[in-house]
């Protein structure tokens, strides 16, 4: 099901990355900042795909690891560590926490798993609200980055881009590896997967760990950029929701889907209702409802069907989507 990319696909990927690398040379800082946000959400979406898309375990823990990484960077940079070292430590810490939590949590299925991951994120938030080391509810300041706005906008942009490329490449290699097939087997039928020799526990934990590393790093970049953290900002369940919805919009369980979803959503939302920042979450809600009802398998799947049946049948495709699961 996952064919290796052809030369053309690799070329397109390379061209995309090159375009993103060259982007800051051509556009204003505002535009760079917008793309930085897109990349951040893309990191979350792609990472969620490991556990939610490939393995079929609907995790709400993205926000937990994002916040964990953010606070790790904040605390360590205040202690005088180099920024990039704190990213690495944040990633390791995220992986360790995912490992420790994964063992009990991944035994759960369905809603119980969703609730447990939600509980983990909320628990972290409560903890950050009350511990002294995190500054509690008052928040925590980070060292300010030196240099002009041109410099630091690019610095954060390229940091984000680095993490995003890392996440996507990891995703690519996982899906073409035994691991990826094992994860999909677990999603389709966990008992059958176990029967055919997939070490389901091990595979699920690896997927959960992978889904924790990149949000932790992204959180670190976010923290340094924001220069100030509050528990409610970074342990926000909306980060988890966005990750899920963007994966769904693009296509759950595909490599490029989450990326496409993140791109579409952030860019479109900026144009369509950039002026109504107050109602951002309301529009997000409407999008969620529409995506779930009409394109539950993602834009990639719809575009493939359109390709084979023509644009005329778009209405039929959307209608068949909404009728598939009704009572």
């Amino acid at each position, binding site marked *: 099901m996952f064919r290796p990319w052809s030369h053309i696909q690799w070329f397109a990927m390379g061209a995309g990355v090159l375009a993103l690398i060259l982007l800051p040379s051509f556009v204003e800082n505002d535009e760079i900042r917008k793309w930085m946000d897109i990349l951040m959400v893309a990191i979350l979406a792609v990472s969620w795909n490991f556990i939610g898309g490939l393995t*079929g375990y*609907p995790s709400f823990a993205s926000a937990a690891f994002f916040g964990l990484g953010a606070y790790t960077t904040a605390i360590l940079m205040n202690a005088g560590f180099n920024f990039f070292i704190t990213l690495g430590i944040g990633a390791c810490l995220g992986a360790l926490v995912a490992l420790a939590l994964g063992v*009990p*949590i991944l*035994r*759960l299925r*369905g*809603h*119980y798993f*969703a*609730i*447990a991951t*939600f*509980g*983990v994120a*909320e*628990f972290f938030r*409560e*903890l950050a*609200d*009350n511990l002294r080391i995190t500054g509690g509810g008052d928040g925590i300041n980070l060292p300010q980055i030196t240099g002009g706005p041109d410099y630091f906008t690019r610095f954060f942009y390229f940091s984000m881009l680095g993490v995003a490329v890392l996440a996507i490449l990891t995703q690519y290699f996982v899906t073409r590896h035994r691991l990826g097939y094992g994860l999909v087997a677990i999603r389709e039928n966990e008992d059958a997967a176990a029967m055919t020799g997939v070490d389901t526990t091990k595979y699920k934990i690896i997927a959960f760990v992978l889904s924790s590393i990149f949000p932790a790093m992204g959180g670190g970049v976010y923290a340094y950029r924001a220069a100030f953290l509050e528990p409610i900002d970074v342990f926000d*369940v909306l980060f988890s*929701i966005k990750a*899920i*919805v963007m994966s*769904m919009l693009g296509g759950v369980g595909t490599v490029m889907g989450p990326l496409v979803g993140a791109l579409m959503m952030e860019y479109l939302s900026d144009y369509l209702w950039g002026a109504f920042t*107050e*109602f951002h*979450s*309301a529009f*997000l*809600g*409407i*999008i*969620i*409802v529409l995506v*779930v*009802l009409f394109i*539950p398998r993602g834009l990639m799947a719809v575009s493939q069907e359109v390709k084979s049946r023509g644009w005329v049948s778009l209405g039929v495709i959307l209608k068949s989507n*909404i*009728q*598939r*699961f*009704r*009572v």
Partner: protein
Amino acid sequence: MVYAQILINSILLGGIYACIAVGFSLVWGVMNILNIMHGTFLMLGGYVTFWMFKLYGVDPFLSLPVSAVSMFCAGYVVQRGLINKIVRAPMFMSLILTFGLQLLVVRLAIYFFTGDFRSVQPSYAGFSIPFMGLSIPFVRISIFVLGVLLTSILFWFMGHTRTGRAIRATRMDLDSAQLMGVDIGRIYAITYGIGAAAAATSGSLVSVGFAISPVSDVEFLSKSFIICTIGGLGNITGALAGGLILGLAENFGALYLGPGLQNAIGYVLLILVLFIKPSGLLGRKGFE
């Protein structure tokens, strides 16, 4: 004496917690939907009571039926018009769908009602009943009694009416229920409506003894998560036990660890129970 007072407070809190979780447990059990809208219906119900008191001076306990009926209708429409379309999809879809609706409704509520915390303050708000040297707030005990009463009525309804039995049949075996002539789409909508009405009544009760705001819906939602997970799905005793355990744990936790960590205790409890016995302490097998 302090312990006795905390015990009383915990039981009173536990009663209202149980009431909050009942509708959530019902929807989850019957349709396998993790209803993120639950806290939202609760919040809206609380606002119905609040505005009726504020604008027309209606006693909060008298506006309960209004809040219940209006949210029943809202829930019925939501289920019939939206959730029924995808209810057979992987369970995760309905979760995300209700999340989308929650984002929309909460945002609108903040716009119309502002994000302030509101509380209904009837003239008897400050009364308390002395009982063997302890003081029991009048409002809290009324909420407790009403909450338990309404929960009992709901469970009587489930066991002894035609609709209630149809709901239970649907939960046990969807296909057989359909073969027996149960209109699944309608039963689902009614179930969701009942869940919303239960949430709304508990919201009305909460708006009297506590405070509500559009953003407090997530707090009540996560309480419902915790209570249902601790107690287990499928029976009234589960919700009651879960509510009481959470009430006790929060109050005594606040005593020993400080009030800041009060909410964190619930999550620790949640994860512990999931670790030890995922189907809940009183959950029955097959009702997950």
